[in-house]
């Protein structure tokens, strides 16, 4: 078997064991949702070179649609998730049709503009509950499993994540993925070989949107609500950061990035307190209110020193050492 696959399998078994090792399941689930979001985003940017600045629109759409489907329509949980993801893919199709022929920064900007318009819609539409959000979405049950237990939900979410990750892996290593790579490397050449590059990019865009939607729907299920935060542009920025911090164009990078960023958001206060307690420097206590400051410093360091992202840098190090050893 492929050693890479063994690696992934080990990784997922590790994640499956986390709750038993004392990790807090809801936190890990949240990381998984964002990790999936980042992986979906990375599918687009890392493998087609299209940098979307509007991916929150897909996360948000699916979050609201899934939440509404479960809470108001009372659909079964799996159906709600699928409906959410499909809605996101549909929005992705519309965005894609409009944006796909633009390139570089203009592509980013048009996706941003469309996402902002959708955000405005969410803000105005009554079913989203404005800034208070769509609250108390029921978890229901998944194929007979009662999801009210955090642990059950944990394994369902992990299952969804693994399935989605497998799909992404498949896409990257498929005939379609090959064409995508060639488009990223040299679009004119790919065209001259007879590929309608716009169609390929569109499909990649829709797939990425759908998977981002799946992440959003799963997140709604996990946390029990959807809010405007899911759809706002800073969330689109967040996923870019996750991908970059972890390593763009690597499969595992976005997962690591999501972990780092979410942990930063949730745990920095605790870290500060721990530092203050162990070092006796009271200043660290203030770290909790300086999340953005610390995040800012991390980005600066990342850009200046770890440009390929954590995973990207690690892989580069590995590559550098291996041939030396082989020689």
């Amino acid at each position, binding site marked *: 078997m492929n050693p890479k696959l063994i690696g992934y399998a080990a990784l997922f078994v590790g994640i499956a064991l986390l709750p038993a090792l004392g990790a807090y399941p809801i936190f890990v689930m949240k990381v998984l949702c964002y990790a999936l979001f980042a992986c979906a985003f990375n599918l687009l940017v890392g493998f087609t070179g299209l940098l979307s600045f509007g991916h929150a629109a897909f996360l948000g759409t699916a979050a609201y649609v899934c939440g509404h489907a479960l809470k108001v329509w009372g659909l079964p949980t799996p159906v709600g998730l699928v409906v959410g993801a499909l809605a996101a893919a549909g929005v992705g199709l519309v965005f894609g049709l409009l944006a796909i022929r633009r390139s570089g920064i203009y592509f980013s900007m048009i996706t*941003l503009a469309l996402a902002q318009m959708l955000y405005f819609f969410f803000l105005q539409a009554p079913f989203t509950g404005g800034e208070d959000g769509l609250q108390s979405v029921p978890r229901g049950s998944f194929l007979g499993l009662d999801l009210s237990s955090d642990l059950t939900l944990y394994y369902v979410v992990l299952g969804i994540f693994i399935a989605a990750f497998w799909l992404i892996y498949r896409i990257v290593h498929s005939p379609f993925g090959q064409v995508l790579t060639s488009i990223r490397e040299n679009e004119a050449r790919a065209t001259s070989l007879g590929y309608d590059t716009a169609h390929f990019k569109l499909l990649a865009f829709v797939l990425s949107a759908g998977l981002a939607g799946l992440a959003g729907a799963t997140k709604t299920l996990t946390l029990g609500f959807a809010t405007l935060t899911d759809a706002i542009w800073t969330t689109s920025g967040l996923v870019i950061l996750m991908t970059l911090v972890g390593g763009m164009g690597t499969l595992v990078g976005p997962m690591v990035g999501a972990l780092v960023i979410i942990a930063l958001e949730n745990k920095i206060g605790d870290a500060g307190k721990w530092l203050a307690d162990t070092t006796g420097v009271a200043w660290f206590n203030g770290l909790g*209110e300086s999340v953005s400051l610390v995040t*800012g410093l991390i980005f600066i360091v990342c850009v200046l020193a770890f440009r390929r992202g954590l995973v990207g840098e690690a892989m580069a190090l590995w590559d550098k050492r291996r041939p030396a050893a082989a020689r």
Partner: protein
Amino acid sequence: MTELFGIPLPALLGQLLLGLVNGSFYAMLSLGLAVIFGMLNIINFAHGALYMMGAFLAWMGMDLLGLNYWVMLGLAPLLVGALGIVIERTMLQWLYKLDHLYGLLLTFGITLVIEGVFRSFYGVSGQPYSVPEQLQGATNLGFMILPNYRAWVVVASLVVCLAVWALIEKTSLGAKLRAGTENPKLVQAFGINVPAMVTLTYAGGVALAAFAGVLAAPILQVSALMGSNLIIVVFAVVVIGGMGSILGSIVTGLGLGIIEGLTKVFYPEASNTVVFVVMAIVLLVRPAGLFGKEK
């Protein structure tokens, strides 16, 4: 009374004029952004934070040193420009050859740090700063009463915008700057001190932001977060105008101010969103923005 779409004409004129005032802010800020992007190939996300710093410096000058508005209007851009030199020398200079993304990310990080520092010292609710004495009061234009200070803002920013435009489009300095972004080594091989030029360009661009910040201090809340709302709009202006196009950012800035002003009358809820609608339409029709050159 003459009406247009149910709004009395004079009132509409008044709204247009107000739109122009806001537009001149957009123009000046997006101008700095466009200069920096055009010359350094960096999307300077920190522009909003440096604008905020300009406003804050004005307040600090008043509060700590008793320096008045006019002194700070000159001093704040210099100080922020100096900070710009430090930022460029220590960080940005390593990024020119990379994808735009990295510049964006780094300057985003810088934004978070600057805002974080100001917030932890001064909180978020803002500092009082009043209109300088010479410009207090308002002038009755017949169709509306225009505060003198707003009139001054329009004049000052238009003059600055035109001066910068002329400097870049009409002098050989501009040509050197543009060439420098494409192939700095070669330009340097022609005997031009590119690194110094680039540093000064960045300093100049952010000084413009600080200038706008001082202009804004008397009319907007001087607070640590005042730049973060603006940056994305200004950024959109630059894109609509055509990335790096100086003229484009000036014209779009003013135009957008007016469109936004009209939106505030006809569909006020959407006045923060209209910029994105305009951006989407423009990019669909003209892929490289209004004044951008297609590749």
